[in-house]
């Protein structure tokens, strides 16, 4: 009896006094991966690339072409038009001094890439960019091979003084292609390309560029303009609702955005897309659920876990097909400055997104990453997230961290339809596909 009482007293005592809150450094313990992986780019006007075309570019172009000759062989006819015949069916003769026609053609292409994708599509169709033979070959080839071809073509045309600038320009290009492909104004034109055998290679090119720069590599990119926009909204008192945001809050907090809600089931099978401190951020295994735990940022900002509440559980199918059960939980982190002044809070709701989460409210701004946007837009039968995009509020808008313009309801509906056309006609990449 005495032993039992002693054990009880000991347990209560140890739970309350012996479990001390943990303090971790944001940059080294929690978000190290984001510091090394995440890139912040600005949207660049592609038409300006034309002003930098000189003999140096020609040298780059030539070296690149020679390195990728085989990959680009199917594009000889189109390249012949661009290079004013310097690349042709018999080989290539790229002069060391740039030909004025070649330069003019390139400038025209950059202008179209920047502001006139329908014009570019027309240009491609008129200048033998593709044919039914290539389309047939692409239907038989693995998508990795097609992506490689498209990457070679894009990298050769989108010249840049460094890899970083190159990535920024390709992100800008992917943005313009996204708008062409899914915005209502040109959606039907793009779908016609996807449904027509002879023009499907153009659709596949666009899908490849979008996938690589917004999802495949671009999943960890941010556009600076979006951070600025979110900061402005946050300053106006709006809550930033990051849907399926994982633990991608570093950039937000670092940029002074302190009113964040994140709805994400944090599936343990997705760890490669999380930063290293994800599991501790979501749930502490300490007896008091980590209440009092702190994350200290180098800039002095402090996050403190002030609440952890479980409200049942939910089941989730993970990558290997297994179904697991996870706690349905809400964690609240208070955000303060170095002086202890409360700045806001980060709320993480561990669960799947539901239709009502997307109800428009003047106090909320939705945001997401591109990969997840795609799954949000997909119909159920294509493994979407069971959100009916067609039933969203008419004024629904969401900021996508990689996209220069917010995505509206109509664009999401168009993505939904395009995914079905992809399944029935184009048979190409799923734009939300993860890397690896």
């Amino acid at each position: 009896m005495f032993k039992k009482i002693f054990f009880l007293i000991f347990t209560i005592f140890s739970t309350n006094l012996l479990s001390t809150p943990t303090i971790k450094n944001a940059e080294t313990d929690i978000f190290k991966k984001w510091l090394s992986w995440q890139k912040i780019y600005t949207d660049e006007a592609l038409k300006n690339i034309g002003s930098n075309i000189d003999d140096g570019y020609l040298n780059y172009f030539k070296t690149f072409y020679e390195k990728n000759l085989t990959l680009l062989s199917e594009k000889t006819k189109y390249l012949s038009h661009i290079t004013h015949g310097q690349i042709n069916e018999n080989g290539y003769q790229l002069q060391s001094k740039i030909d004025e026609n070649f330069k003019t053609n390139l400038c025209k292409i950059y202008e179209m890439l920047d502001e006139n994708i329908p014009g570019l599509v027309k240009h491609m169709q008129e200048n033998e960019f593709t044919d039914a033979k290539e389309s047939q070959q692409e239907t038989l080839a693995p998508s990795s091979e097609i992506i490689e071809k498209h990457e070679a073509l894009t990298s050769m045309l989108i010249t840049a003084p460094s890899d970083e600038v190159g990535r920024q320009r390709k992100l800008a290009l992917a943005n313009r292609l996204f708008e062409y492909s899914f915005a209502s104004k040109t959606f039907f034109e793009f779908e016609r390309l996807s449904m027509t055998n002879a023009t499907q290679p153009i659709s596949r090119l666009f899908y490849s560029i979008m996938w690589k720069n917004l999802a495949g590599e671009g999943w960890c990119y941010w556009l600076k303009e979006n951070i600025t926009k979110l900061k402005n909204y946050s300053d106006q008192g709006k809550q930033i609702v990051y849907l399926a945001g994982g633990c991608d809050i570093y950039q937000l907090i670092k940029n002074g955005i302190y009113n964040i809600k994140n709805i994400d089931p944090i599936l343990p099978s997705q760890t490669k897309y999380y930063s290293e401190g994800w599991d501790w951020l979501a749930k502490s295994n300490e007896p008091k659920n980590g209440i009092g735990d702190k994350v200290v940022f180098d800039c002095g900002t402090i996050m403190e876990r002030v609440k952890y509440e479980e409200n049942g559980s939910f089941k989730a199918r993970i990558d290997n097909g297994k179904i697991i059960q996870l706690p349905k939980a809400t964690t609240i982190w208070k955000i303060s400055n170095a002086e202890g002044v409360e700045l806001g809070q980060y709320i993480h709701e561990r669960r799947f997104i539901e239709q009502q989460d997307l109800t428009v409210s003047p106090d909320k701004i939705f945001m997401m990453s591109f990969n997840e946007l795609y799954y949000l837009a997909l119909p159920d039968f294509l493994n979407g997230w069971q959100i009916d995009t067609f039933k969203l509020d008419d004024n629904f808008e969401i900021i996508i961290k990689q996209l220069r313009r917010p995505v509206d309801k109509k664009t999401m509906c168009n993505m939904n339809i395009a995914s079905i056309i992809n399944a029935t006609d184009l048979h190409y990449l799923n734009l939300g596909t993860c890397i690896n």
Partner: protein
Amino acid sequence: MTRLKRLLSAAAIIFVSIQISASTNIRDSQVFERWITQQFIFEEQDLNNFYINHQKVFTHAFKQTYTQNVSQLRTLVPFLSKLTNNCINELGYKLEPQMDVQMVGNLQTLQNLIESNTPAFIDWLKASNFVDNKLELEEVKKSSKYVLEKYKILSSLLFSTQNSVTQQETLFTFANSLFEYCFNDATCEHYTELLMTPKYHPIARYINTTMWFNLVGEGWKHWHKDCLTNLKADSKNGKEIVYIAGGCDFYELLKQGIYNIRIIDPFIPTQEKYFSEGWQFLLDGNIGDEINFGFDAKEITLIRNHDESSFYISTTPVNQTTETNKLPQTIKQKTITWLVVDKFGNELGNVIIERRFATKKDFEPSSTKTLLMSYCEAVYTSLPSIIEGWDIDISSFDKDFKMYVKQLRKPITKNHMLNIRLASVINLASLEFINYGSNPN
């Protein structure tokens, strides 16, 4: 030995004679009774002047249709109130023998817009209480059969008349206008916006019902006169009319004097209800079999001239046979040629029946062929397999591809088919209403 040979030869002659004498001579009604009694040829109707042309009976017919269907039209009262200048309202109705002037004006405007400017007709509906959340919620909950019935009645109300054939003919024209609105390049986007926007779904269901019922549900058997006129002209110019998936629906062609016909159809036995009664006689019989036609203007006879069988083909899709673990149903692929002769025995042409599935090659353009299909089958040709389509690569059809559809006043193009495909995908994703070519049963 020689004697034996002679005996065998004699037996062979007797056998052949028996075979020849086994040929059958029957009347057209024994093969095509269904078409003769049930098929109509509908002429283009003047929708613009429908009210004026039917003024004497319109008021009475309108009231009769409404009173007989008050409960089914209950959820459309806000729209009907606007249309009738409140003669129909939430409290009931007051439809006097002398129709309300504003109501007549509204009806005439609508009837006029359907023909002259269908997008404006749709916009009129949008602005006239047809866009209503309650209506949308009710339709989502109810069965498609209920929604179809409601909108069939609404069309009957808009074109009220006491002559049911005239009404059918008018609604056939209405459905033609809607088809062009939905699938012409110029207005397809205006239409797909309805499919993609839940608040406009009641309008989309109304349009789809009107097209489906008049071109498929009821209209699958009827012909548009303009289509027959065009086919006749092409036939006169020496073209062969290739009726893809036409079954035995060529009675009307023969009646119109079109004697150069090729049918490509697998005649799947499970589809028997869509064939006329003598379909098996058309496919199987003896050389020399005859079918006699007594058209008003001309007597003609079909004589079975050639019958060439090849191999058995499966009519059951592979996935179904594996799922049910049943043997696939098979039919014998064959070609039967019927000679068309006049009463003096002069040869007029041929009806060639190829019992097989259509392939992409059959849709290739030719200066000697005119393609023809029925609406329902033209829709399935346009669709991908996930929407029960035939998965024919319509995108690689020739850019000048043109095909007549027996219910439509104008031939359809490759772009029409691509637009049907796209709209069907949007229907699958958003509206989730019946397919454009859904089986009438």
